[in-house]
Every structure is written in structure tokens, then in C-alpha cells.
């Protein structure tokens, strides 16, 4: 069966196509070149007044795993539709079903959970399997687990560390590795309350810098496409841009991705001791080749923050709104903290956070290096993406909101001086092709022959850009029409994206001993096989290629 999307204005940044009238052809769930079509065209969809883009990709959104479920449980009142106070527009910690529905309605077809605790991987994948429509994947957390830290403490070779990293990717069915507050979560278990980039943890005597160095090198050596995904030290603390810059340096020029960088770009100047360091951070972003980031924009309103960073979440619990929170130490593996929070436009700090995020977006010269996220739900629920796109594309709209914020803000931000408006070309890069590229998803985010037919079609006639991005007229996933004019046409289930670099199996012997001695489960049970993913967890896997052969 062949479907033709006829004469849409096509954006396909990977193939350097921007706003070109073109036809797109689909056969068996894949994009097919016109010249390769052998049979008759079964269905023609007129797209003459439409914008056609590959399905959007969210590379950092908390959609599955223990902490997400804690948030759902904690915030029951936000999904009780029989409660008179229920607000159907706010999706605080949505169920798996709602997550899938809201993403697909916005034309997002692939999403990544960035904080998959290895020990909790089975649960995270089981949850994500229950999210309809979208493809998904996860980044396994390392860098606070006692096994890894003991490898560093014992001065294990880089090659052994590479074996461990590759083993974790396989055992947890992940596509990348993330480090959260390197060493800090572990140090918190020993009652340390802060850990700077060059500060040694009390027990292991290891600095965050060493952890970032080893892990960036490991991913580079293994040829894993996605560089180390880093939630830096000192999240949210005024003055933390220094440690953010030091963390960038710790990669020694190798590829590194800094996540929700807005929360890491704070100065401590001014009468309030809180200021924007967006300019300093953007200078780095613009000048260093191997550095990418996602922003983690905040929006005003109720949300819930969830993080593996138990150290910082414990510190933040005083700001919980409503007044409840939870932190947890987890299995000599990692930790987590869930703190509900309401960003207030009347608050100087929150208003400045909002401005800092936008400053970073607008100062970033290369849309291939900066990604559109709210760190769902930490900065705001992902449903605010269309609003965020409008803020980037429409300076009048942006300045109108800025002018309503507390007066003092204008002295602390350069936002009102930034005239830039993002173009449709740039939006299509940062929400499609760029995330596909940085994750190594060769078959996503483009309309090349053989790529997955994940397609979002927007109605050009909708003049309000926010409205246009919120309600695509057509969403196609794996070649199937799943949303048409806002209506769900068919429920389908996606797959899980992984990467499997090679490693020396002897690491499993040592790990197995470690598990038998110190864990409360066996290594065998910790490993999730491909077959288990499919049959029990509920999601088939797709193994993406490494960018090259392993080096060390």
C-alpha cells in the first residue's frame, strides 16, 4: 500500500530541504523515493496548504520509571476527574495513556526518558511500553553507583570502565548514558550535602570531574552516538555557571551533552544574589564544537520536579508546593527526589529563570546544538511546547509577557534586547533532525528513502503559531494515520530504541560476584534480555548502530 502526501511545504533539514513544495511517499511504514515505487498509489492526501515535517523527537522527558510513578501517586488530586477542582488542561504526572495521547496529538512520535536507573530499568521499560503510539528509549544512570565508583577508586583501566558502560547499555536496554550530579547522589548517602566539580567525595575520594572524564571517554571509545548526557553538579544553586563550565572542560574536548542547561546557568550577582549567566554559558556553547545542550525551559504554573538528584531535591523540599515531597536512596545504584513546585510569575527568581531559558535559546547560534525541552515535568509539562515555540518565534508575544513580570527583572536580563525570532527552518531542525542526529537515530527525523514514516502535518492556514503546533492536522506513525483533525484514528504501540556496543564478557564475572555479595538480587535477574523486552515487558527493541567500531 502506497500513500502519497501531495504538494506539502516540506521541511527535511537532514537533507537540506526547507519549505520546498514536494511529495512524500510511504510504503510499508517507511519513506520511499518516487523513483522506487513499483505499484500503484493507493491513497493521495492533499497537503497543498500544509507544512510537512518528520515526527518530532523529545530527547529529554521524564515519562517512565520509579520517580515518575511516585509523582503520579503523590499527586493523585491532579488526575482525579471526579474532583470538582480537577483541571483537564494541566497534566501533572500524566498516566502512560495520557502521556501517549498528548504527545501524539502534538505530533511527537519518539521520546526519551533520560533517567533510567539500571536497577529500575525493567519497571521504566514496562511503563513506557504502556505508552501508546510513540517510540521510546532511555539513558541509563551511571556515576553514582557504588560499583562504578569502586572501579574508579581501584584505578581500573579505561578499558574496564568501557566494558562496564557497554554492559550497562545492554543489560538495561538503553540508548545512552546519563550522569546526574556526578558522585553527589552517592555522597549524599554518606551525609555529604554538596559536592563541587573538584571536590573529593568523603568516602570514595573521587571528584565529579574524574567521573565525567571517564564516562565521556567511555562513550567516545565505544562509538555510542549519544555523548554523555550530563546533569551537572550544583543544580539550581546561584553561581553554578562556574561549575557548569568546569563540567564542560572535564570532557577534555570529547562530545558532551548538558541537559536542562537553564537550571545550570545561574550567577550570584546583584542585590538578590541571583542573576543570569546565560551570556557566559552561551559563549561556551557557541565556541565549543562537541558541546550540545537542551534548555529545560520553565513555564509559570503548577508542576512537579523529579530527579535522580536526591542531594539537590532534599535541599529543595522546603519549596514544595503543595507541601509534600519524597526522596529515596536506591539500591547502591542511584537515588531520586520528587518535589511538587509552582513557578510563580510574581517571584523574582522564577521570572528570571524563565528569562534565562529564553536567553539561552536566543543566544545559541546553531540550532543543531540546542534542543527544545522543558525537562518535562521539571520546568513545565511537555504540553507547553507549542507555547514555547511561539515565545521563540514571536518577539512581540515574548516581550508582552516579559513586561508583565516583576519590574526588577529587566535590570537582570538582556531578553528585551534580543530581537531574534526563530524561523520555521530552525524549529524544524531543533525538534526533529538535530535530536535524531545527536541520538544516532538514522531512520528518524528525516525523509530519506527507507526512513521510518513518522510524519507530522500542520495546517498553514492556522495563523497562530502556538495553535498550529498544538494541533497538527495529521500525524502518521510508522506509516499509519494515528491522528486526523485532532481525532485519534488508531491505537498503535511503538518500539524501544537501544544501542549495543561490544564488550569483554569477563566484566560479568566480576559483577556477578559483586551482586552475590552485596546486592539483594542476582546479576542474571538484573539483565533484561531482548526476548524479555518483547514478551514480558511488552515492547520490541530496535538496535541502533554505533557510529564506529570500539576503540579501546
Amino acid at each position, binding site marked *: 500500500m502506497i500513500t502519497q502526501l501531495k504538494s506539502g511545504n516540506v521541511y527535511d533539514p537532514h537533507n537540506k530541504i526547507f519549505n520546498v513544495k514536494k511529495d512524500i511517499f510511504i510504503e510499508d511504514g517507511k519513506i520511499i523515493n518516487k523513483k522506487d515505487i513499483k505499484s500503484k498509489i493507493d491513497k493521495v492526501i492533499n497537503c497543498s496548504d500544509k507544512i510537512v515535517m518528520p515526527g518530532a523527537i523529545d530527547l529529554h522527558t521524564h515519562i517512565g520509571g520509579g520517580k515518575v510513578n511516585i509523582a503520579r501517586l*503523590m499527586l*493523585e488530586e491532579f488526575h482525579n476527574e471526579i474532583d470538582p477542582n480537577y483541571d483537564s488542561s494541566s497534566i501533572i504526572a500524566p498516566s502512560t*495513556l495520557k502521556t501517549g495521547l498528548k504527545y501524539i496529538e502534538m505530533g511527537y512520535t519518539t521520546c526519551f526518558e533520560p533517567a533510567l536507573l539500571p536497577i529500575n530499568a525493567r519497571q521504566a521499560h514496562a511503563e513506557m511500553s*504502556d505508552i501508546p503510539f510513540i517510540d521510546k528509549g532511555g539513558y541509563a544512570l551511571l556515576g553514582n553507583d557504588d560499583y562504578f565508583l569502586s572501579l574508579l577508586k581501584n584505578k581500573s583501566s579505561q578499558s574496564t570502565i568501557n566494558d562496564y558502560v557497554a554492559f550497562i547499555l545492554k543489560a538495561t536496554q538503553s540508548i545512552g548514558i546519563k550522569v546526574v550530579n556526578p558522585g553527589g547522589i552517592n555522597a549524599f548517602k554518606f551525609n555529604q550535602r554538596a559536592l563541587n566539580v573538584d571536590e573529593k567525595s568523603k568516602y570514595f575520594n573521587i571528584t565529579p570531574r574524574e567521573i565525567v572524564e571517564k564516562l565521556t571517554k567511555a562513550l567516545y571509545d565505544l562509538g555510542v552516538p549519544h555523548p554523555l548526557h550530563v546533569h551537572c553538579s550544583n543544580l539550581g544553586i546561584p553561581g553554578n555557571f562556574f561549575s557548569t563550565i568546569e563540567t564542560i572542560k572535564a570532557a577534555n574536548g570529547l562530545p558532551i551533552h548538558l541537559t536542562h542547561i537553564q537550571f545550570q546557568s545561574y550567577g550570584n550577582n546583584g542585590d538578590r544574589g541571583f542573576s543570569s549567566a546565560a551570556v557566559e554559558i552561551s559563549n561556551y556553547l557557541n565556541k565549543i564544537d562537541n558541546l550540545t545542550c537542551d534548555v529545560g525551559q520553565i513555564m509559570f504554573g503548577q508542576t512537579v520536579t523529579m530527579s535522580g538528584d536526591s542531594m539537590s531535591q532534599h535541599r529543595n523540599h522546603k519549596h514544595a508546593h503543595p*507541601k509534600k515531597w*519524597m526522596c529515596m536512596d536506591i539500591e547502591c545504584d542511584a537515588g531520586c527526589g520528587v518535589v511538587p513546585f509552582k513557578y510563580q510569575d510574581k517571584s523574582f527568581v522564577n521570572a528570571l529563570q524563565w528569562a534565562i531559558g529564553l536567553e539561552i535559546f536566543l543566544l545559541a547560534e546553531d540550532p543543531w546544538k540546542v534542543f527544545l525541552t522543558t525537562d518535562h515535568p521539571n520546568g513545565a509539562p511537555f504540553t507547553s511546547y507549542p507555547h514555547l515555540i511561539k515565545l521563540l518565534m514571536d518577539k512581540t508575544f515574548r516581550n508582552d509577557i516579559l513586561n508583565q513580570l516583576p519590574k526588577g527583572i529587566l535590570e537582570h536580563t538582556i531578553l528585551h534586547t534580543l530581537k531574534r525570532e526563530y524561523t520555521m527552518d530552525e524549529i524544524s531542525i531543533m525538534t526533529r533532525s538535530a535530536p535524531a542526529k545527536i541520538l544516532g537515530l538514522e531512520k528518524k527525523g528525516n525523509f530519506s528513502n527507507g526512513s521510518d514514516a513518522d510524519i507530522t502535518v500542520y495546517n498553514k492556514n492556522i495563523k497562530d503559531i502556538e495553535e498550529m503546533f498544538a494541533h497538527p492536522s495529521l500525524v502518521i506513525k510508522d506509516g499509519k494515520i494515528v491522528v486526523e483533525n485532532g481525532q485519534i484514528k488508531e491505537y498503535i504501540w511503538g518500539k524501544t530504541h537501544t544501542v549495543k556496543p561490544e564488550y569483554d564478557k569477563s566484566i560479568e564475572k566480576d559483577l556477578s560476584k559483586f551482586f552475590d555479595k552485596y546486592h539483594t538480587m*542476582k546479576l542474571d*535477574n538484573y539483565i533484561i534480555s531482548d526476548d524479555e523486552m518483547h514478551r514480558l515487558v511488552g515492547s520490541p527493541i530496535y538496535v541502533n548502530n554505533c557510529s564506529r567500531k570500539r576503540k579501546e
Partner: protein
Amino acid sequence: MASQNDNKNLVCPFCSLHCDDVSVTTDNNQYKVNESNNVCAKKIDTYNLNNKSMLLPKKGAKVVSLSSALEDIRNIIKGHNETLIINHGVDLSGVRSMLNFASQKNYIIDHINSKFLYQNIGVVQRTGYMATSLTEAKNRADVVMVFGNQIFDKSPRLLEKVLGAKNSLYMKKKKELILIGDFSENIIKEIKKKCNVTNVKLDLDLTNDFLNATSLDSSEAVKGLKKSKLSNIKNIINKSKYLVAIWLASDFIKAKNPKKIISSISKYIVDRNILSRAACMPISGSLADATSSQALTWTTGFSSRIKHSEGTFKHDRNAFDSKHLIDNNNVDVVIHISTISPDKLKLNKNVKNIVLGHPNTTFTMAPDIFIPVGIPGIDYEGIMFRTDNVVSVALKSIRGIKLPTTQNILDKLA
């Protein structure tokens, strides 16, 4: 057919610790735990089939075919108003199919242990809470406060595997256990082999007073507790670097105010974290309580007591309480799903009772329809969640009897 003397690894479904280090021998589909020193060997073996086991569906006292049992269930459901599914324990695939079934027919779902679940999650839904997990407790805890006295019966290997474990990354000494409640001499004797024990015989309703009195600056006395003992406890707690509090919510059922006990413990732990480290680790029930609450939470946003209507799951903690529904005649069909324990099911004569159950299940009265289903981890592979909610295990299949799974049956009915 399983061959004789086949050695298999069991991932144990029978309590919320879900140990995966048990090996069994299977012989003619009977399994026997190999490690004779395993305190659970007897318990696990009693779940074997016996000459009273029911391997075929029944309508009342009469054995019927599966297809006719299914037809009968369809007929019962069709003619009635409100159907309730009570989960007495099943793996993730069973819970998923239960949700799918309920969503197609607008049914209510409750778990038999929901009341204990609600006691525990109350602290998460109303206040601050610090938690930990089994491996953390094993490697980091120096002092463990144990509240109530059933915990070691319900989770028999907690002592061996966690509290008194031979190996620990950071604890080179025995853990200090403070037992609070009314523990039997036998249990204390067992614990003393592996831990240092301070036994505090206490009315659990005085938990809050006791915890307050243990703070260094307190000069309060606690009813029934000697001054010297109290100062000894203060000493132990004061030195602690990682203190863990554990309890089993069902242990507080006889107390006047179970919720207050749990919130006092939780508050105490939260406060300790201002200067030191401490965490709670409640032990959940043995009827796959955690599996049910986790899967319901991610699918619907609610951990239990839900009803599907108008295209979505709704939640009402009181209205969808299974006991309340049955006592008030608000349901007329009850589907019991009980695959882990053969313990007596309480059935009610005012409703139609359908049971998908363990082949050894016993009842207070004969159900209208009974379909024997496989035991997860014995008869089929599956996933279950451990007590600390963060670890889930992959269950194996160790014997070859061909019982349908709960999922098989519910998918046929949906």
C-alpha cells in the same frame, strides 16, 4: 512434562522480597527447595499440587470444560449491573489484562490489601517522606528500628538477606536492631544470632512518645520503659549514621490509630535527615501488592480502587472499597483473582462469585465458577515488583502443567 530431578532456579513469588537465589528440584511437576537451611523451604513446598488440587474448571461442585466455564462467566456478567474485580495477587501481565478487561466493560478494581497500601502512601500524599531500599539497608544501615512483630514471619528471609547479611559494603559490625512492639522470645533468639538486639516491649500506640523520648535533649519518660534502657537506646541512635525504620502496615491493624503510628515514624525519619541520614523501608504485603499498585498507578494515576466509566478510570477511595461495595450490595458480581496464595477466600452469598485461582484455593463457600490458573513464577514467566517498589524481578516457569494464565482467561472474556 518436566523431567525427573530437574534442577531449576526459582524466582520466588511468595512474598514481597521475591528472592531469586532459591534452587528447586522438580519431579513429576512437584518442586522441592534444595537448600534445606532455607527458612522458606516448607512454605514454598506447601504450594505444590496435592490430591485436593483442582486442575479443571468447576461450576459449583461440578467439573466443566474451560469453554463452558467461560460461557457461563459471560452469561453471568451480561445479566448483572455492577462487577467488581478483587485482586488477591497476580503478576504484571495479570494486572495489565485486568485493566484492559475492566476498561472494556466498565468494571471496578480493588486489591484486597488496599487498606494497608493507603496507610503507607498517606505519608507520601500528605507530607515529606524519606525512603530506602533493600540493598541500601543491607550495605549502609547501622541501626534498624523494627515496628510490629509479624515482619519476620511475613518476610522470612529479611533477616538473613538484609538485616543480618554476612556481607556489607560499609558496615563492618553487626547492625543494631531495635525491636519495638511485642516480639516473641524465639524470634529474638534468632535475630540475636545475626544482630545486636534491643527489645522494646511497647504498646504501638505509644510510638510517637517513644520516638520523641529518644531524642538527645528529651527528658521525657515512656510508659513501661526503664530509664536505663531508654538512655541505652539514645546512645545507639545518637551514634547512627544511617538509620532505617521498617514496618508492615498490617501489623498496626489492632492499634487505635495506625495512620498516626506511620506518620510519627516518617516524621521522625525526616527530622533525622537534617543532620544525619535515615530512611523508611516499609515492607509490603505478600499478595503482589506492590505489583498491583505500581501498574495501576502508571496506567491510571491511581494506585487502587478504580472504576472505568465514560472512557476513563475514576478513583474513589471509599466508594470503590471492595468491602464497602459488597456490604452495601453495590455490586452483584465479584471476580476474585488469586494466583499466589491458596489461602481461604472469603466469598459472599449476596453476589455471584467467580474465582480465577491457585489450584489449591479454598473458599468459605463454593464459588459459582472456578477456573484454576497458573501461578506466576511457577507455571509461567512474568514480572513482579519487590516490596521497595524500585526493583522488579523476572519470574521463571519451573513446571510443566498446562494451566491457563490469568491473562489468557481475561483476554478471552474481554
